[in-house]
C-alpha cells in the first residue's frame, strides 16, 4: 500500500507489483486521445488503477487524430465505449509557433492563435458532449520554463509565459459549462517535480514522447486520483494517533507543558501537520482519534493547549483508551457507519501499523516517517481523500455526525422506538432534481454503497440528461429533525418506457446517515404514486448485488414487490399498481412531496 516516504516507482517495481495484486477487479476501459506519444504510461497507469480496484483495458487513438476521433460519432474511440477518456493535447504540437517561434509572432498572429485554440476546444467539447457521457480528463498546457524572451518574458502579459497561462485560464472557463470534463493540471505536476525531471528530450526527438521515466508514474498517479474520486473510491475518514503524531512527545510522560507543539521546531512542524488535517476537515473528511492514552491526560490538551489547531469539536469519534487499535477502528467504522475501506489510519508506531494492516487489510494504514517536517506536505499531496465535487453537505459533515451522537443519547431514554422517532420531529421532503441539487445527487450516486439497490454511478452531465428527459424522473429526498438537518440523503431515478405501461426504478439509494427511520418508504411511495398518476400499471425494481449492499437484499420483497426473475447477481421485482399498500409510518412530523 501507500508508503509514507515518496516511493520511486521504477518500471520493474510496477510490473512486478501489478502482477502480484489480488482482485477482484472491475473492468475499466480507458481511452487515450492525444497528439503525443503516451503509450509508455500504460504499465504505471495499470499499477495505480489496479490499486483502486479496477483492471484497465486501453484504447490509444492514432497519433494526432483527436479531431477526427472526437467529431466522428462512429469513430473507434466511441466504439470502444470508454469508461473514461484521457485527452493529452500538447500545445507544443498543436501550435508550435507559440513555443519555438514566439518572438517572431505579431500581436495579431498571437491573438489569432489564441482564438484558434478557443474554437478548437469549444468544438471538441461540444462533440464530446454529443457523443459520450464518459468523464474526460483533459491535460492543461505546460508553461515553458525557458521562455522565449528570457527574463524580459515575465514583464508583459503578452509574452510567452502569460500567453500560455491565459490559455490555461481559458480552459478552466470553458469547462464550466461541461460538467463531465475535468482538467488535469499537468503544469502543476511539472512544477512539483521540476521540468528537468519531468521531460526527457531524447524521446521527444526520437518519437514525440515528451515525458521522462520519473514523470510517467506521477502522471499515472494523478489520473488515478481522478478515477478514485469519479468512481467513489476516495477515502472518507482519517483516524489519527496522538503522541508523536499530532504532537511530539508522550503526553502521559511529558505532560501538557512539555509536549512538542508550538512555534519552535519540532513543535512547529506538528502545528503545520495539524493545519493540513484541519484543511481536510473543511473539505469534508471525517476526523477520528484512536490512541492509547488516559483520557484525563488528553482532554486538557484538546481543550486548552494554546497551540493545538485541532480541537474536540473537529473529531466525530474518539477512541482514547488502552484497548487494541483493531477493535477501536472497527468500532469507529460502526459508529459513523462507513466501510473499513473508507478509512485511513495514521500512526507513528510500526507495531500498531502492522497490527492493523494484518487484521484490517481494507483500512489504508500509514506509518509516519521519522521526520515531522515532511508530514504536512505529505498529507496535502496525498490524494486519497480527493473529490471532484464540493457541496454544502461537505462543510457540515462533522456537525451532522455530532448530531447523530446526540440522537443516540436520546434514543437510549426511550423503550419504544416509534415513540423515539416521534420525539425527533422528523420532516421528510421529496423534490425533483434541479440545477442546485445536481452536484450533491451525483456525489451520492458515486459514494453510496450500502443502501444502494443498483449501484449506478452518475456524473452531473448524465444526471442532467435524465433530469431534462421526459422518459425519466430524478427524485431526491431531504430529511431534518429537531437536532438539525440530515440534508439531501436519498435519490431515486425512474425510467419510463414509452408506450408501455411499466416504469423501471433505475436507481434507489439512501445515505447511511438516515438508515432505520424508514424515510425510504416515503420515497418509494412517491414513486408508486407518481407512476399511478401517469396511468402506469406496474413498477419494476431491481437489486444488483455487490459485496457491499447486502443490507438491501430484501428491500423490495419487504415492501410487497413480487420476484419476477433472478439471474447471477441480479433480481428483478414487480409491483402491481392496482395494489396500494400503506408503507409510510405515521411517526413523521411532516411529509412534503412534489409530483
Amino acid at each position, binding site marked *: 500500500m501507500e508508503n509514507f516516504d515518496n516511493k520511486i516507482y521504477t518500471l*520493474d517495481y510496477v510490473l512486478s507489483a501489478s502482477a502480484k495484486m489480488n482482485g477482484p477487479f472491475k473492468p475499466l476501459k480507458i481511452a487515450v486521445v492525444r497528439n503525443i506519444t503516451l503509450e509508455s504510461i500504460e504499465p504505471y497507469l495499470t499499477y495505480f488503477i489496479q490499486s483502486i480496484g479496477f483492471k484497465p483495458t486501453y484504447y490509444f487513438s492514432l497519433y494526432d487524430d483527436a479531431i477526427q476521433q472526437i467529431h466522428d460519432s462512429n469513430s473507434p474511440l466511441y466504439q470502444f465505449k470508454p469508461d473514461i477518456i484521457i485527452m493529452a493535447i500538447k500545445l507544443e504540437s498543436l501550435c508550435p509557433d507559440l513555443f519555438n517561434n514566439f518572438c517572431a509572432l505579431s500581436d495579431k498572429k498571437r491573438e489569432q492563435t489564441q482564438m484558434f485554440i478557443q474554437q478548437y476546444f469549444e468544438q471538441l467539447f461540444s462533440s464530446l458532449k454529443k457523443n459520450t457521457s464518459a468523464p474526460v480528463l483533459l491535460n492543461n498546457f505546460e508553461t515553458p520554463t525557458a521562455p522565449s524572451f528570457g527574463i524580459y518574458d515575465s514583464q508583459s502579459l503578452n509574452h510567452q509565459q502569460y500567453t500560455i497561462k491565459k490559455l490555461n485560464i481559458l480552459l478552466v472557463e470553458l469547462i464550466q459549462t461541461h460538467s463531465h470534463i475535468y482538467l488535469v493540471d499537468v503544469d502543476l505536476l511539472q512544477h512539483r517535480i521540476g521540468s528537468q525531471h519531468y521531460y526527457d528530450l531524447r*524521446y521527444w526527438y526520437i518519437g514525440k514522447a515528451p515525458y521522462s521515466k520519473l514523470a510517467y508514474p506521477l502522471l499515472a498517479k494523478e489520473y488515478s486520483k481522478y478515477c478514485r474520486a469519479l468512481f467513489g473510491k476516495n477515502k472518507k475518514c482519517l483516524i489519527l494517533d496522538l503522541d508523536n503524531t499530532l504532537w511530539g512527545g508522550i503526553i502521559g510522560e511529558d505532560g501538557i507543558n512539555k509536549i512538542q507543539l508550538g512555534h519552535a521546531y519540532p513543535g512547529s512542524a506538528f502545528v503545520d501537520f495539524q493545519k493540513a488535517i484541519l484543511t481536510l476537515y473543511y473539505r469534508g473528511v471525517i476526523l477520528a482519534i484512536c490512541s492509547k492514552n488516559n483520557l484525563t491526560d488528553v482532554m486538557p490538551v484538546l481543550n486548552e493547549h494554546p497551540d493545538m489547531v485541532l480541537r474536540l469539536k473537529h473529531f466525530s469519534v474518539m477512541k482514547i483508551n488502552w484497548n487494541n487499535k483493531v477493535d477501536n477502528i472497527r468500532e469507529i467504522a460502526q459508529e459513523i457507519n462507513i466501510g473499513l475501506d473508507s478509512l485511513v489510519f495514521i500512526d507513528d508506531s510500526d507495531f500498531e501499523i502492522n497490527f492493523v494492516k494484518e487484521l484490517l487489510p481494507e483500512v489504508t494504514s500509514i506509518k509516519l516517517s521519522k521526520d515531522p517536517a515532511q508530514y504536512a506536505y505529505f498529507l496535502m499531496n496525498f490524494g486519497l481523500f480527493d473529490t471532484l465535487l464540493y457541496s454544502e453537505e461537505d462543510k457540515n459533515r462533522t456537525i451532522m455526525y455530532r448530531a447523530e451522537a446526540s440522537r443516540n443519547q436520546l434514543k437510549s431514554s426511550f423503550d419504544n422506538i416509534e415513540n423515539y422517532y416521534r420525539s425527533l420531529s422528523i420532516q421528510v421532503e421529496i423534490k425533483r432534481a434541479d440545477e442546485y441539487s445536481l452536484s450533491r445527487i451525483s456525489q451520492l450516486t458515486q459514494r453510496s454503497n450500502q443502501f444502494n439497490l443498483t449501484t449506478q454511478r452518475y456524473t452531473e452531465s448524465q444526471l442532467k440528461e435524465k433530469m431534462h428527459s421526459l422518459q425519466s424522473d430524478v427524485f431526491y429526498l431531504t430529511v431534518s429533525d429537531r437536532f438539525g438537518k440530515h440534508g439531501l440523503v436519498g435519490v431515486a431515478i425512474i425510467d419510463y418506457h414509452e408506450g408501455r405501461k411499466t416504469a423501471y426504478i433505475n436507481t434507489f439509494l439512501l445515505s447511511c446517515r438516515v438508515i432505520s427511520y424508514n424515510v425510504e418508504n416515503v420515497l418509494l411511495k412517491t414513486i408508486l404514486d407518481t407512476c399511478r398518476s401517469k396511468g402506469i400499471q406496474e413498477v419494476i425494481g431491481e437489486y444488483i448485488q455487490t459485496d457491499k449492499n447486502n443490507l438491501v437484499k430484501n428491500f423490495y420483497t419487504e415492501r410487497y414487490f413480487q420476484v419476477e426473475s433472478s439471474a447471477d447477481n441480479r433480481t428483478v421485482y414487480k409491483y402491481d399498481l392496482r395494489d396500494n399498500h400503506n408503507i409510510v409510518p405515521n411517526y413523521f412530523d411532516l411529509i412534503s412531496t412534489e409530483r
Partner: protein
Amino acid sequence: MEEKLKMVLSKVFSMDKESITDNFSIDTAENWNSLNHSNLIIALEQAFNIEFTTDEIIEMMSYKLIRLTLQEKMQENSIIF
C-alpha cells in the same frame, strides 16, 4: 552484468532468459516494437543507474549492441568515480 542484462530483457519482452542470445535483435524478436524499446531503455537505465544518449538509444537495437554500449558506459563511470 550479462546476467542482469538478460534479466531486464526477459522481463521487458516477457520471455525466457535462455532464449536471449547474441542473435536477439529487433529483427528476430517478435514484440520488439517502439513502445517496448522505450520500456527497455527505461528498465536498463533504472537497473544499471546510467543514462543513454539519444544516439545510443536509437542504435541499441540488438542484444549484442546493448551489451557493448553498456560495457562502454560502465567503464566511463568507473573512470569518473
